[in-house]
């Protein structure tokens, strides 16, 4: 139980042990603990961030779908409108075409009628002239009375 040099020896070895612990034992272990703590915190933060991102993406997807639906409806509307327009247009075209055809036909008919009438008139005139010629063969000169006959033929 004597106090002696052992005291100094213990003091020195204590100091060395503390130094060694601090440098080679405590610091690496504590460093690993801190690193792990940080890694876990980072991981949790990343997970939370990911979740947030996912929610945002979902929201965005919903919006895109809604937009697409709207656009599709619009396109369908436009197509329907265009179709009815086309139908209207072609109906109009057909109608005007038919009118045109009718008008042309009528004109042709009229022309035919005129031509027939002309021919008829000419034949009648010839007939009348030849009749008159037969009747008047003896007393009337053809050349002298031709214009009178033609005037007659024109009045038919």
């Amino acid at each position: 139980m004597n106090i002696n040099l052992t005291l100094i020896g213990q003091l020195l070895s204590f100091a060395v042990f503390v130094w060694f612990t601090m440098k080679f034992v405590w610091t690496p272990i504590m460093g690993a603990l801190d690193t792990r703590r940080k890694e876990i915190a980072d991981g949790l933060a990343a997970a939370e961030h990911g979740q947030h991102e996912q929610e945002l993406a979902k929201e965005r997807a919903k919006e895109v779908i809604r937009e697409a639906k709207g656009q599709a409806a619009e396109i369908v509307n436009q197509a329907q409108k265009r179709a009815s327009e086309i139908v209207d247009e072609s109906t109009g075209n057909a109608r005007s075409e038919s009118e045109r055809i009718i008008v042309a036909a009528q004109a042709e008919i009229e022309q035919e009628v005129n031509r027939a009438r002309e021919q008829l008139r000419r034949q009648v005139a010839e007939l009348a002239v030849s009749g008159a010629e037969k009747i008047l063969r003896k007393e009337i000169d053809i050349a002298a009375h031709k214009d009178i006959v033609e005037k007659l033929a024109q009045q038919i």
Partner: protein
Amino acid sequence: MAGDTLTSSEYIRHHLTNLTYGQHADGTWGIAHSAEEAKEMGFWAIHVDTMFWSILLGALFLYFGKKIADRVTAGIPTGTQNFAEMLVEFIDDSVRGSFSGRNPLVAPLALTIFIWIFLQNLMDLVPVDVIPALAGAVGIHFMKVVPSTDPNATFGMAIGVFILTLYYSIKIKGVGGFMGELTLQPFSSDNAIIKLLFIPINFVLEFVSLIAKPISLALRLFGNMYAGEMIFILIAIMYNAGVVLGLFGGVLQLGWAIFHILIITLQAFIFMTLTIVYLDMAHNEH
């Protein structure tokens, strides 16, 4: 038992004597062969057993500590690393709980103190006669295996802590601040003359409380371990007193050893906590 020819008091005395190396009365250097011889060697002698066991235990701790620290990973910890991390976190929690400043030395210091004292105290659980008998077989007369029952060991650590306390007190508060802490409280006055009169009184009070810290720190550990060791020795004497008392002694030793597990851990923890608290006081202004 160390020898049947010994009386009980001789047996106890034998167990409480350190293996001392120093200068004999006739001027030669060597191992003391009796307690008286060891005493005569004075200050310039060394307790070989205390030094050997404490350094061996400390080195053991540092060896395993270094081995674990070298393989330490921030990933998934396994086996020994789990154990080391548990210890480190326990110490870290204790330091965070009691120490408010920032000093990278305090936590490793606390760890060293806790483990080293615990290991030293743990030697108490080795039956008192085993190692001395083995040492006796190879010709070593005295062998005190529990370093913390040697006041040199406990005072060595306590003085180490005390030096750190003084160092940080002066470093943080300056020489003036530290002297002021010693002389200007607890009694203080607005009157300069009365204040001057209070200085010696304050100094005596504060100086005693300052010195009391390392002394109580060292003596608490020493006293507890010394008493525990003494009880183990007394129980061991019963083994010589017949079968009935011997069996009773065995039961007592088992009981005391189990109880002692609590004491050795508690004493290591108290030493560590008080160290942290003293260093915290050194870092804080009153």
